[in-house]
């Protein structure tokens, strides 16, 4: 027995397609970075600081919880860093450090770890964090107020706020091309439509996010906004493209709604869920009280997710 060779005994299948959590999360981060760069260029040092601080603190919170719960340290899977990055992309470059610290705490601890960590969270951690943050400190996350120190060669009003306050006439100074290339104010990584779209396309093609959700999100938003312009009071509502390229619509459709744990996995539920997010976003913007509806819309659809995902195909040989 002593000279017996030691072979590895494990379970089938003995092949794996090579995917992994870290690959997935790092690729999402990579794609998201594309949209952060215009933010860096525009806002300079403060934006870089917010992004770095957010990623770092998210990872630290995760590690602290791991240690307290005596779990293996999970920052290697890249999810905490991704959460930090996404949070930073949604907030203004002027956010004070303590607000970032609170934001990552809310995302990692309240949004993710108390539900048992990655895979257990019913809501997107960043959505949870953003919802609480913007309710708590309105001023910090109001882009008009927050970005006062900056003046660029484009309209410095937050497009959605103008729309809400003064109606569609006030937004005529924003051309769609401007919005698309990021000539608008907003979160560090959520204004450059083209960069977000390219990142999203990359992730969809590589299979890291599910096209069904992103696509139906945007379609839902587009159709709803279009219906408003068609049947709503004349001159009261902005066009569909304006809605798609402003606020958090794109970052929501590509990076927030597609989070695995809080979204459905079956085909029809994915479409319903995505469309629900999109429709709700526009409803909140057009007739609700908030300036942007994305965070709340995703939050509500996250809530409905377990129910929607019950619509599933019949399993093989299932006798009803």
């Amino acid at each position, binding site marked *: 027995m002593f000279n*017996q*060779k*030691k*072979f*590895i*005994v*494990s*379970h*089938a*299948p*003995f*092949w*794996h*397609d*090579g*995917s*992994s*959590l870290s690959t*997935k999360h790092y690729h999402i981060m990579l794609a998201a970075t594309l949209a952060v760069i215009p933010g860096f260029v525009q806002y300079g040092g403060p934006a870089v600081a917010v992004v770095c601080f957010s990623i770092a603190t998210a990872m630290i919170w995760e590690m602290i919880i791991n240690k307290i719960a005596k779990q*293996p340290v999970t920052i290697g*899977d890249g999810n905490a860093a991704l959460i930090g990055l996404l949070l930073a992309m949604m907030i203004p470059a002027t956010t004070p450090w303590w607000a970032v610290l609170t934001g990552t705490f809310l995302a990692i601890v309240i949004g993710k770890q108390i539900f*048992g*960590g*990655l*895979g*257990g969270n019913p809501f997107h951690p960043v959505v949870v964090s953003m919802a609480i943050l913007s309710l708590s400190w309105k001023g910090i996350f109001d882009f008009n107020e927050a970005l006062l120190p900056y003046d660029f060669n484009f309209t410095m009003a937050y497009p959605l706020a103008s729309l809400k306050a003064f109606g569609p006439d006030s937004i005529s100074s924003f051309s769609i091309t401007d919005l698309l290339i990021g000539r608008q104010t907003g979160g560090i990584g959520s204004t450059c439509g083209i960069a977000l779209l390219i990142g999203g396309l990359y992730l*969809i*093609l*590589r*299979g*890291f996010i*599910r*096209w069904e959700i992103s696509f139906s999100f945007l379609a839902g938003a587009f159709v709803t906004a279009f219906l408003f312009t068609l049947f709503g009071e004349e001159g009261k509502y902005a066009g569909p493209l304006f809605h798609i390229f402003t606020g958090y619509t794109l970052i929501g459709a590509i990076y927030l709604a597609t989070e*695995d*744990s809080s*979204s*459905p*996995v*079956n*085909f029809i539920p994915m479409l319903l869920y995505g469309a629900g997010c999109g429709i709700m976003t526009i409803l909140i913007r057009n007739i609700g009280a908030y300036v942007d509806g994305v965070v709340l819309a995703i939050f509500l659809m996250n809530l409905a997710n377990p129910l929607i995902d019950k619509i*599933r*195909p*019949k*399993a*093989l*040989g*299932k*006798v009803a």
Partner: protein
Amino acid sequence: MIKKSFFGLLKPRLEYDIIDSKTTAPREITVSKTVQLLSNRIFDKKDSILIQVGDEVRTGQKLSLIKGEDDYVISPVSGAITSISPYTGNFGMLMTSIVISKNSKEETDGRFAEAAKSPSLQTTTDFLAHLPGFFPISLLSKQTPKIKTLVIHGMDTDLLVTTRQQIVKASAPAIKKGIQILKEISGIETFIIVVPETLFHEAVSTGATVKTIASNYPSASPYLILKNILGMELPAGDCFEKHGIAVVSAEAVASLGKAYQKQEIPTQKVLTVIDKTGTQKLVSVSIGTPLKDIFSALNIRAEDGDRIIIGGPMTGLSTYSEDHPVCPDTDAVIVQDRSMISCVSNNACINCGECVRICPAKIQVNMLVRFLEACLYDDAVDRYDLFSCIECGLCSYVCTAKIPVFQYIRLSKQELTGIQSTEAENV
């Protein structure tokens, strides 16, 4: 190993290996010193066992452990029994190992030749339960319901393996003879042979109804064959026999045919050996041959930290010893280099849904795995369709969190149904 394609949006497409005209006949490898036979019967000290260490046995001799028991093995060599001992097989299945050391004098046992002059169900049951390819003989005498349809499976059920295809290609006449015998001795009315497109002509010559299947994994799964080709969806959890259907490998039918043709019990098993570089070689060896004899004949070196897999890459079972013998149902052996071994993890499920979207049985694997991890088997069966699983292994193959999903599934099924089902599913 086939990895996810760069455009991960597309589902990974796993293809079976299909033999072509260039494939050469299996290389024969002779037993060096000993063979080890595994009997499903366990014995304890109180049983009076029929065979003893030291007994002389002849080639083709039937060895039953216990008087009055159906279970037996067939000695593929002439020699002497050197040990009889308990043996633990896959999933903790208890068996008995019988080791025979070969001597130079080859003597054939004549009892089958005598009985085989007039084929009968009795003779078949008495002598042919240990055929290469594994024929579930007991099914033939089953009464309620009687087996009416026999699906002869001429396609290998796992990737890289070409064993059964080789049998269809080279032994179509034997399969034909096997079908003839079965027609005579059993009540089976319909014979269907399932093969890949390329073996259509060989299959036609066997006289059975020919059905071809696609080359994408897992279309050769008996459950999917039933559904896609026979248009019948087996209710989840039912076995084929319950519906009067048996699925057996082409090799089993060919062995049956050969047995009556030559009036001797075949003991040579064909198998596909896959070395560390992924190259396949077909070999023909005696049942009971230790794997290490095959490795040394083929110059394959299995080292510490490598993995030896009996069966294919998706559904096989790994073994801890290269002394493991070739069994009647061993269709393939893989030696996987340590550098190719992908690890499983203890990550939690992230609900990415890759498994759900690839599962051919349309199971909500993401939910199922949660219930299995918590050992909530009843819910797993009732609400999340555990018994719909056709055991293809794709869910584990694509799992982003590298959870051993398939292992959970197999273990819990095992737990729930006991050992018998492995036999039925080994076809």
